[in-house]
């Protein structure tokens, strides 16, 4: 052992034991290609391309590109890249080049090379085919029986990459290492959230965005898109002119849909059913969910004063989230609802983002002044008084006579979500006036903040928004939003900002930054789940129930045969009784006692589920 290698080992070894194993490892020969790039064979297997190992490594990184990008996008904390079976370490250089191309701060990353063959690792350190850089690289030697060294790495690894030939050589050992590490980390089981959408209406996007955000947060999510049943629901109108009969038919159909949600939730073993306003969940369906031990949450993204059906269902949900506070919360309390929380609307930056409009978009959707929304009384009244000639109004139900036929765009059709983004991005000033069927301009008692406020902001577009009592909690009204309290003030602000592009941009940029930091659907869902975990102890228990197999093994310690049997299971995939039962093959060799026990449990459980005794 020369001094130089000893120093290298000391600086790269992840732990004392790895260092020791590296020191003791035998030397193995290597060969080089014409360009001088070394390669090595171990146990009769070549670990890298003998022709062009650098090209091979670049292709290997490309294979993982999507996964790497996803982690980089969502991980702000330091990232640990676990490289299982790195061979001579060509992958390290390739990974570094890839990260540099994406301008990633390399200081945030640690590449931990996990090698099961000390001889290979020793050769890698002798040859050092990767260039020392800002990227921190460590080497750890592991073996199947070795678990002690893993405890220090028990934090969750952000990214796990498998080497090629070297990984295959000791595949079982690497998998055992990874599983063991996951056990030590005590990874929690992701909650299963079923998100049934409404059939139609303004709350529908909130359900889609909730599902998407929950998925990004790592929950197991199933979106039940009920909007596909809307045409059947409406078909009652074609059958009869009798309103009462239509109501009966629609009621029966709603009951069917509600039961479908319950059936799916039970079948899929959902932990939570996340409903938004107008999701077709009837009181009896909610009772069934409770009976089945499935939690339900309602995000009532509507004005509680306009839509009153919440009174019937709110007490049956485990948790209710509202976009209003004060009076609504008092009324919920008087109905016996204990778990209610304020959860304002939000934006989805994947849908609403800044973009430079194409000339065609600018011509079609652009204007100095624009409004997107339905033609409520206060809006029509307020906009009729605006004299600005370049004012486009998008949306349905507008009294064209009152606001000006030429202003209502494309015959007052509904605009898609995609189009709203183009309109916001193509307009100098986006007016955002919350609806009111009774006021002539701004509702002086308006409290909640509509989704449009967040969406315009997420697009980095400028808006003038009417005053809302809850707005100041969400945005800084000095720097992030410009508000008006009357039609007159709106007209004055239009005049002020029409020619102030710098001012508009300043507000828009700050509002966007605020949305991205505080008002995304992901933030809302994170808050919502935390609230639910706080008030629903069994949900907390479920999330943190830890490793299923580990818990089971600990409980059957006295039964050596059972422990032996369970230890053969893969902890990563053995997460419930079904997983164990699925490994039992009948008619293929002797059925062991532990297999018989799990088979019996599975049979009794299937029976219990069929009888509706358990879920």
């Amino acid at each position, binding site marked *: 052992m020369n001094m130089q290698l000893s120093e290298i080992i000391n600086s790269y070894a992840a732990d004392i034991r790895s260092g020791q194993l590296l020191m003791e490892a035998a030397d193995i020969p290597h060969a080089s290609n014409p360009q001088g790039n070394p390669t090595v064979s171990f146990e009769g297997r070549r670990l890298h391309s003998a022709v062009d190992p650098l090209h091979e490594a670049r292709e290997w990184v490309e294979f993982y590109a999507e996964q790497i990008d996803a982690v980089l996008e969502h991980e702000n904390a330091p990232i640990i890249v676990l490289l299982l079976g790195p061979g001579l370490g060509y992958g390290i250089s390739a990974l570094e080049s890839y990260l540099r191309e994406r301008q990633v701060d390399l200081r945030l990353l640690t590449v931990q090379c996990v090698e099961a063959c000390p001889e290979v690792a020793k050769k890698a350190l002798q040859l050092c085919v990767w260039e020392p850089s800002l990227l921190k690289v460590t080497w750890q030697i592991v073996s199947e029986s070795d678990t002690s060294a893993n405890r220090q790495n028990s934090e969750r690894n952000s990214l796990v990459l498998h080497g090629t030939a070297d990984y295959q050589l000791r595949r079982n050992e690497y998998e055992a290492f990874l599983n063991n590490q996951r056990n030590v980390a005590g990874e929690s089981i992701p909650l299963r959230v079923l998100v049934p959408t409404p059939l139609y209406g303004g709350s529908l996007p909130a359900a889609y965005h909730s599902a998407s955000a929950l998925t990004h947060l790592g929950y197991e999510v199933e979106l039940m898109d009920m909007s596909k049943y809307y045409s059947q629901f409406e078909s009652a109108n074609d059958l009869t002119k009798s309103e009462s009969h239509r109501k009966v038919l629609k009621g029966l159909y709603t009951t069917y849909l509600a039961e479908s949600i319950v059936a799916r939730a039970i079948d899929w073993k959902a932990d939570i059913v996340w409903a938004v306003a107008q999701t077709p969940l009837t009181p009896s369906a909610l009772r069934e969910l409770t009976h089945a031990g499935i939690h339900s949450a309602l995000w009532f993204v509507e004005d509680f004063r306009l839509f009153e059906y919440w009174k019937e269902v709110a007490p049956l949900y485990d948790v209710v989230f509202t976009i209003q506070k004060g009076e609504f919360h008092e009324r919920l309390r008087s109905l016996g609802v204990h778990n209610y929380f304020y959860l304002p609307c939000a934006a989805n930056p994947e849908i609403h983002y800044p973009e430079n409009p194409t000339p065609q978009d600018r011509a079609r959707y652009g204007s100095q002044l624009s409004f997107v929304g339905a033609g409520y009384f206060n809006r029509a009244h307020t906009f009729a008084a605006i004299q600005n000639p370049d004012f486009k109004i998008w949306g349905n139900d507008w009294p064209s006579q009152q606001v000006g036929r030429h202003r209502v765009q494309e015959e007052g059709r509904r605009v898609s979500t995609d189009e709203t983004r183009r309109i916001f991005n193509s307009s100098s000033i986006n007016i955002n006036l919350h609806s009111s069927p009774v006021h002539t301009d701004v509702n002086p008692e308006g409290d909640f903040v509509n989704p449009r406020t967040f969406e315009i902001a997420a697009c980095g577009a400028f808006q003038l928004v009417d005053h809302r009592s809850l707005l100041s909690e969400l945005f800084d009204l000095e720097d992030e939003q410009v508000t008006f309290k009357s039609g007159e003030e709106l007209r004055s602000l239009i005049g002020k900002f029409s020619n102030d592009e710098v001012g508009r941009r300043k507000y828009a940029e700050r509002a966007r930054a605020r949305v991205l930091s505080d008002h995304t659907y992901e933030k809302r869902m994170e808050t919502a789940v935390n609230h639910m975990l706080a008030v629903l102890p069994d949900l907390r228990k479920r999330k943190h*129930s830890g490793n299923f197999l580990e818990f089971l093994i600990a409980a059957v310690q006295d039964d050596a045969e059972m422990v032996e049997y369970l230890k053969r299971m893969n902890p990563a995939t053995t997460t419930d009784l079904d997983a164990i039962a699925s490994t039992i093959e009948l008619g293929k060799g002797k059925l062991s006692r532990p297999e018989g026990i799990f088979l019996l449990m599975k049979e009794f459980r299937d029976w219990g589920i069929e009888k509706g005794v358990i879920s």
Partner: protein
Amino acid sequence: MPRNIVVLSFTRMGDLIQSIPLLRSLRLRNSNATLSLVVLKDFEETAKRLPMIDHVIAFDVDRFVSSLDTRENPVGAHAELSRLLENPYLSDIDLLVNLSHTRQSATLSSLLNPAKCIGMHRDIEGNLRVNNDWIVYLLSIMEERRFNPFNLVEIYRRIEGDAFVDLNLELALCWDDAVEAEQLFAAHGLSGNRETIALQPGASHAARCWPVERYAELAARFAQDGFQVVVLGDEAETKLAERVSELSNQNVVSLAGKTSVGSLSGVLARCKLLVTNDTGTAHIAAALKIPVIGIFLGPASAKDTAPVGSDHVILEANLPCAPCDYMKACANPVCKSVIDAEAVYETSKCVLDHKLYTLKLPDSIKARLTRVDAEGQFSLQQIGGDKTSIEESLDFYRSFWISFLHQQRGIQEHCVTERVKRELSPGLSELSDICSAADTAMNELMRLSYTESESKARVRETLERQTEWQSSLRALIGNCSAVSPLCRFLLVKTVLARTSSLLNYQTDLTEILSDLHRGIALLESTVIDRNTLIAPIVGELACAES
């Protein structure tokens, strides 16, 4: 000789009581063995009153299943199961008889690792097996019970192979039971000296229940005649029982929900008569030798589950659809309206006065008397009326199954009427064709195992040929009802055939084919006129001699 015998009975109370003759037979044949009975927790008290049982082991299935909720780690269930498996009476089992015909009980039977097992179990490789043809028969009659001539008591008893043990039921009435019943009577103002009649208006399923208004009318008639009337039932039937009392407008006392198994026995022992639907209470009364009038409606089949003993009366609606096929929901339960309170009242009077021979009921009601003869055989005798076509068939099938399943003598000649022959002939011819096809298919299957390199397509084709004759067997059930019981029996066996290996499949199919041949031979022997067969041979012999 087995020293440790365990009977597994995860069934309801009625089935448990109906297994008494089998348990008695086990006791008598193995007088030195320990006889343990594993039952569901709910029926532990009933089991403790079976005099031939040494140990009762109760399994709390509700608690066990609730700890198997998908959200829970099954450690609780494992602990529960371990407690059961570690019970000292469940180790070193020489003989285990499984009377619960479910997968769960089969798996548990195998986990208990008995030296010998009778009933549904799993073999060493985990394949589901039924090693007793009477249990296969029991499974085969689940879907169609019209042609089943056996009471469950008799089937159970034959499972163990003892056809001659006394079929009468017996329950031990403890001193405590009598005291409890006395206290219950006193608490409800009931006299110990007055003649008492008990009514049981509930049942395991609403379809089996005689209308509550009619029970009330009957209760009123009894009360007017000076009888003391009590209404029985479990906790879930409390409201039903109270409704009987309320509608009767008489002093009719509801004891529903107030009796344990012990006190129920004690109460029944104080009664002159029990009028009931098809219930476990009927079997307890029969075991205590209390006369029972059983009103069997919906899917309740007197043949299968009538209380065993002598002089109980079963009343049924004389309708072609009665009883309903098992597990079929009836949208129009006309049987409920056929039997009126007057008919049950008249029957009761005849039973109480021992004058059943005078009973006259309308043709719409079928009345049958239970009878255990001097040899211990159980039967249902129709009170008035001629034997119907079905009843003739039942006599025939009784003789057929005993011959077939016990591999005994042929079918008794008096059971083979001309009507039976006529009904059998067409089905028998089709059955013979199926048998030929099955033989050919089987030969191909046998060849497969001797040929080393068969193409996958060839193997698949050969296996498909096996399913073809099985499908023909299934089709025959619908086409010819007379041979359908045998077809169903064979089909149950095909469902249970092991498909885990070619050898196992061949072995099991060979056994099924052997049964098919045997069944056909037995049926043919009834149809073919022996004289026409024998005469030419006799003639030939005569010629040769001369």
